[in-house]
């Protein structure tokens, strides 16, 4: 028998008992829709957490800092780490050498350098944040005008502004008596920039003196040297860096790490000279106090801390946890959004399992319904099956007819069930818009509670078909075992 004929027979049998077929299909529709909806809520929850976390920073990034000490739970005391691994170029190279590490951003909080525009306007808001100019493009910086830093900017003072910086220049001499700062603008992308930051005619300079332009100069001291710099680009609004996640808006000026360190050395020397501090007493280079501890102390092999933090970019989200562990093995602190995500997923796993189980039960009921329908159908068609056997229908073809009929029920139910689940998903999302996600501790406003990815549709339809065929298996085999003679005698 040709396969088309087998399908034709199955189809005509399916259509013969319309009411019963429709009811069986309805069972499969409900089963499929239940599974899809339940899974889609689980997926929606996960997506919600991910959205929320990635709004705090990329899921592929790991923040690395030094390990100053640990809190001992037994003694209830804080134990200082006396052989601390500092964030210096050796550590940087160690981390770069790890597998799956795509790029490392050497971060220095460059507060204390003020940007001056055309020698008279000043921006007190922006702090310098260092990046590795060569790998800046790997991180999630989005350029609005101009370009990001690149290899050519390594070791230079070229910089990229965050969107808010141009709004924050003010002329100290034009302020009223009680005004220390000009109004702070928190620009939006749709706001036009007050001037073109990339204009060749604008002269940018950095100074170390916070009172520059605001307080009278002491001309008895050596001249304050201003460092020339060039702006190459402006970022889009609201692309806050990992370190800035507590801020609403990004106020950073991004500069190459090496370029910044050199500039900072020069600024420090100028400052020492201005205040008359002898070279040997003055500390050159970058010296920071963190938690009141001089970071130069307690380091392994007397190495010096160079960077405040490192941001490690991993090439694959799935490797983040592993790379984090390896970094911790180096004696450093490492944290990532993936840690949190994994924790949260672990916590909601139970809930998702329950949802899945509810769907599975519905599906199981549908499967029983298919099997029941097919068995009933065999009782009804006993005589026909017998006639077909006597006339010479092969057993395989009889089995095929019943399996195909069961598969037709499965496919029809699966396809319609997926359709229904889209409808229900829309309804759930509409009803639950706002509010509902907070039930699960998700505060990301854009996330939908139910998300149906395309693969779920395909899987659901395939599953429904397979369940149909499996449910049809027993009745089909039963049909082939019917005695032709008995079947014919059956009046």
């Amino acid at each position, binding site marked *: *028998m*040709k396969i088309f004929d087998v399908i034709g027979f199955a189809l005509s049998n399916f259509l013969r008992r319309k009411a019963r077929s429709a009811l069986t299909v309805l069972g499969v529709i409900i089963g499929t829709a239940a599974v899809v909806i339940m899974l889609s809520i689980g997926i929606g929850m996960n997506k919600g957490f991910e959205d929320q976390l990635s709004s705090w920073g990329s899921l592929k990034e790991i923040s690395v800092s030094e390990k100053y000490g640990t809190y001992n739970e037994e003694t209830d005391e804080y134990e200082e780490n006396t052989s601390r691994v500092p964030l210096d170029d050796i550590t940087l190279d160690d981390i770069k050498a790890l597998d799956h590490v795509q790029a490392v951003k050497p971060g220095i909080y460059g507060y204390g350098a003020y940007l001056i525009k055309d020698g008279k306007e000043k921006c007190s808001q922006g702090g310098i944040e260092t990046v590795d100019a060569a790998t800046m493009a790997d991180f999630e910086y989005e350029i609005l005008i101009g370009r990001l830093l690149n290899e050519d900017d390594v070791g230079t003072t070229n910089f990229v502004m965050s969107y808010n910086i141009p709004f924050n220049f003010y002329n100290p001499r034009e302020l009223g008596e009680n005004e220390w700062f000009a109004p702070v603008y928190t620009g939006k992308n749709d706001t036009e920039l007050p001037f073109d930051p990339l204009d060749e005619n604008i002269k940018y300079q950095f100074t170390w003196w916070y009172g520059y332009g605001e307080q009278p100069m002491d001309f008895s001291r050596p001249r304050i040297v201003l460092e020339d710099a060039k702006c190459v680009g402006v970022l889009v609004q609201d692309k806050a860096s990992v370190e800035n996640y507590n801020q609403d808006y990004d106020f950073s000026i991004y500069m190459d790490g090496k370029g910044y360190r050199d500039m900072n050395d020069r600024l420090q020397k100028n400052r020492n000279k201005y205040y008359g501090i002898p070279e040997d007493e003055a500390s050159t280079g970058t010296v920071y106090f963190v938690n009141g501890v001089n970071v130069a102390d307690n380091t392994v092999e007397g190495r010096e801390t160079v960077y405040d933090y490192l941001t490690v970019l991993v090439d694959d989200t799935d490797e983040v946890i592993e790379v984090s562990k390896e970094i911790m093995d180096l004696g450093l602190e490492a944290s990532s959004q993936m840690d949190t995500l994994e924790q949260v997923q672990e916590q909601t796993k139970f809930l998702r399992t329950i949802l899945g189980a509810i769907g599975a039960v519905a599906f199981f009921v549908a499967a029983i319904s298919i099997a029941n329908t097919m068995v009933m159908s065999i009782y009804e068609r006993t005589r026909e099956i017998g*006639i077909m056997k006597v*006339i*010479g*229908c092969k057993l395989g073809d009889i089995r095929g007819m019943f399996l195909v009929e069961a598969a037709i029920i499965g496919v029809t139910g699966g396809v319609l069930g997926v359709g229904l689940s889209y409808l229900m998903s829309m309804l759930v999302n509409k009803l639950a818009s706002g509010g509902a996600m907070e039930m699960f501790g998700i505060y990301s406003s854009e996330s939908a509670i139910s998300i149906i990815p395309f693969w779920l549709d395909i899987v659901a339809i395939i599953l429904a078909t397979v369940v149909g065929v499996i449910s049809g298996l027993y009745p089909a085999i039963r049909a082939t075992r019917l005695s*032709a*003679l008995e079947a014919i005698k059956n009046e």
Partner: protein
Amino acid sequence: MAEKVVPTAKPVIVIKGLTKIFTLGKEKVAALNGIDLEIFPTEIICLLGTSGSGKSTLLNMMAGLEKPTKGSVTIYGERIDKMSERKLALFRQKNMGFVFQSYNLLPNLTAIDNVSLPLAFAGVRRKVRTKRAKQMLKLCGLGKRMKHKPTQMSGGQQQRVGIARAFVATPKIVFADEPTGNLDTHTTIEIMEMMVRMARENKQTLVIVTHDIEIAAYADKIYHIIDGRISAVEDNRDKQIIPASSTSAEPEAEQQKNEDDKPSIRSADDEISGILENFSIETEDKSENNTEEE
């Protein structure tokens, strides 16, 4: 004239010591009691007996629908009683046609679809088999009822469809179990003549089971069966009823036949006959491929 049976030809069906014992509660009832029988090609034979004589059981065993308790049924050298269900289905598909007392048409199929069923099982393309089924129905005088379903037809018409179905694939053997049991006398004659004529024209072996001596009169040979035994064999050739070679039950069919220059079943569709003759159990796949050729 009907063809003479050649006694020296190799028998088509050979039955040896066939015994069937049914167990009813504690009692054992012998339905068949050591039957020996040989049926030759193109023979039309009749198993004549009363209800409960075992004639139907004998037919069922020839068709492989029941297994004997003892003895053997050999058709074309193949042991039917030892064949698997799978093989039997194929064997029936290729070699056997059936006409039943209660017609046994599929209720949801039209006359055309019912008739083309054996061809569908053999894997013949829809277009070819529908054409063939239409020819068969015309030959059986149902040219105007092709799209009717069994419930829309009279008993005689249903049995014509049943005969068309039995003969459509030109099987070598046709079994008819009380083919006219549910029909009036007039229709009985029409049906019997049609069946016998077709068997003759196609040189087929026809085995008729009946309790009606009137029907037995169409056979070459009559086996009287009583209590599971062949009590008498009667050579009926001298006094048998011989239907006219081109009698038609309905005027429309006759007209049709005349227009078609009196087609015989054999020549009606050589394509299918060829296919089915080449068809054998051992070369199942190959045969199916043949049917798929455009």
